[in-house]
């Protein structure tokens, strides 16, 4: 019995010792683990804070040409819905996305970050300049425009869409309109103007440029909607007595309204001359990012002309052997189509008189600012990424009095 007792006694001591060692071993591991774990957490915390601080630092840096901070540029880009901002001829265009990318790449490395800013929905005002051919064949369309468009604009504004229009007429129409079944001389000066609808005569020259040119000796300067378009875009809509100019942050639209080629003499004018006037207008529209909606008149059929104070009905389809009708449906339509397509607009065929005013309403209601929905930069995060850090900041858009959210993500490769 004593022998067994001694064996158990020794065995008990060994078990106790082993248990004590195991207990201390684990206690030791956990106490060290506490420090190493805290150390790891501290490092991760530091990296997160450093990432947040980095995003704020980048947003505060300035773009050298404009002196504007990245936050300001992002605010403007959000307002415009475009990541490229044009700051005029002195500065040129600034690509905000590129400005962000090189900074983030330099700090966090290529492929280690991703950024997204959803742009707000902004409904921009519409400003229209219309350049109107005032030859007799356009008499009815002009009459319809000046009669109906002011009311259309009021109606559109009542629906919450803000638009205004300035008509630059290339001459003074000498034609007649039908009133109560009778032809009476059309006096454009009696046309009503409102706060949002203005009419003015295109000057002969503007900033040294000829705004109204005939095609050679036989053409007519009141049909030069090419050079006229260039001058109208440069001048901009009516602002006040003797003042013209475009407002900031609006959708800018130009409408040439004609049934003839710039400078006249339907399709018999040496094409290079008409084309030169046309190209001036198109280039200006493209350079200034103006939407052009070409309104092609139809010079087929009867026109009401005014000669020596007498109204006459004349078939102008092939007047004096000149193929007005064929030209308006051929080259004029083609050119109007070309300029509309090149600038993001659309051509309207004015087959009927009422079409001109209706087309104005349709385009104002349908035109949307050319906006991108968001700015996205960097690399889309890989699916298996570990320890991703993220920051959400608010960016002010001061001109709108709004904020947009900026989401930035950062991770370590591998």
């Amino acid at each position, binding site marked *: 019995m004593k022998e067994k007792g001694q064996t158990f006694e020794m065995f008990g001591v060994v078990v106790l010792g082993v248990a*004590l060692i195991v207990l201390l071993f684990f206690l030791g591991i956990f106490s060290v683990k506490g*420090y190493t774990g805290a150390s790891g957490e501290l490092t991760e915390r530091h990296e997160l804070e450093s990432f947040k601080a980095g995003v704020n630092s980048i947003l505060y840096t300035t773009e050298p040409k404009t002196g504007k901070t990245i936050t300001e540029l992002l605010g403007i880009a959000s307002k415009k819905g475009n990541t490229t901002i044009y700051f005029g001829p002195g500065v040129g265009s600034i690509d905000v996305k590129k400005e962000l990318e090189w900074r983030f790449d330099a700090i966090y490395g290529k492929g280690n970050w991703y950024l997204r800013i959803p742009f707000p929905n902004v409904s921009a005002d519409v400003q229209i300049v219309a350049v109107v051919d005032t030859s007799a064949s356009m008499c009815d369309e002009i009459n319809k425009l000046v009669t109906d468009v002011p009311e259309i604009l009021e109606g559109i504004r009542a629906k919450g869409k803000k638009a205004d229009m300035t008509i630059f007429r290339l001459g003074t129409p000498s034609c007649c309109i039908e009133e109560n079944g009778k032809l009476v001389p059309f006096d454009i000066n009696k046309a009503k103007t409102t706060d949002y609808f203005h009419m003015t005569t295109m000057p002969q020259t503007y900033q040294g440029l000829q705004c109204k040119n005939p095609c050679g000796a036989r053409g007519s300067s009141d049909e030069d909607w090419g050079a006229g378009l260039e001058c109208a875009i440069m001048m901009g809509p009516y602002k006040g007595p003797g003042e013209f100019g475009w407002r900031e942050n609006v959708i800018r639209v130009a409408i040439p309204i004609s049934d003839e080629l710039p400078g006249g003499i339907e399709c018999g004018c040496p094409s290079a001359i008409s084309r030169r006037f046309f190209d001036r207008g198109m280039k200006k529209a493209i350079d200034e990012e103006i939407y052009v909606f070409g309104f092609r008149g139809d010079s087929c059929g009867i026109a009401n002309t005014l000669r020596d104070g007498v109204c006459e009905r004349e078939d102008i389809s092939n007047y004096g052997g000149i193929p007005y009708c064929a030209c308006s449906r051929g080259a004029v339509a083609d050119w109007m189509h070309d300029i509309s397509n090149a600038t993001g607009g659309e051509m309207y065929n004015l087959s009927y008189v009422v079409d001109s005013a209706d087309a104005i309403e349709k385009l104002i209601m349908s035109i949307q600012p050319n906006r991108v929905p968001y700015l996205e930069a960097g690399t889309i995060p890989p699916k298996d990424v570990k320890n991703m850090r993220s920051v959400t900041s608010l960016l002010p858009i001061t001109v709108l009095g709004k904020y947009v959210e900026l989401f930035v993500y950062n991770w370590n490769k591998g």
Partner: protein
Amino acid sequence: MNCENKLKGKAKGQMSFTLKPFTMLMIIIMLIFLYVYLNSNEVKKEEAKKDLEIRSASTDILLLLANSEDCLAYQLPSGVSAYANIIDVNKLEEFSEVYNGIEPSCARNYDFGFRVEVVEIVMTSMGPREAKKWSFGVQNFSREYHNNLVSYWMPVALKYSEKEVGIGKIRLTIFDGDLQKVAGFLDRSCTMGRAGLINQTSQAFQISYPISYEGGQLCIGMKNKACRKTLCDINMENITAKGNYRLEVSFERPNRLILVT
């Protein structure tokens, strides 16, 4: 029967005679094992604690440098507040001149030494490149004489003027060691002496390498010495052997510390 009982009793006595010393031996082995284990565990724990302390200090120093108007943060002309994480380049120029070889007082940590490097990043035709560099803090630190070294960086905005703000990185290298501890003690004593708070103080140190004061700098080591600046001039006898020392200092105006071991 008696004879049988006698034989049994003898066997039991022999067993007890063998088992007791064996048990004792086992207990001694276990105790030795426990002592060694606990000791090594304590060392590991101490190392982990030091690592945690140095990391924590480095985060504090970086934040102070980039956010305090006493350090590098850009301060509004009105002087009311400072911008966080936006570094005033004028202050940076000043710091790299004034604090060449010593840590700036606005972010001084008396337990560790550190060095700061700020790098400007600019866009070139070849892509983003590091351009101008500024540095301050301890310039010369030898790996031989420090126990821990941690390096952290953080992006910062560099403000040149109201209309010109660039991007850069601030990189902090923080380390500990005998030289940094002694220098920290001396600098703290100097600061307090200058402020008229304490004229005499002492602290115990375990020193592993010789420490001397040469050419206005506190140095450690025999041949490949690592030296650093101190705030006050030091009047001391060189510490030539490793060991435990109690350093006693007294401050003398305007800028001198008398060090006695």
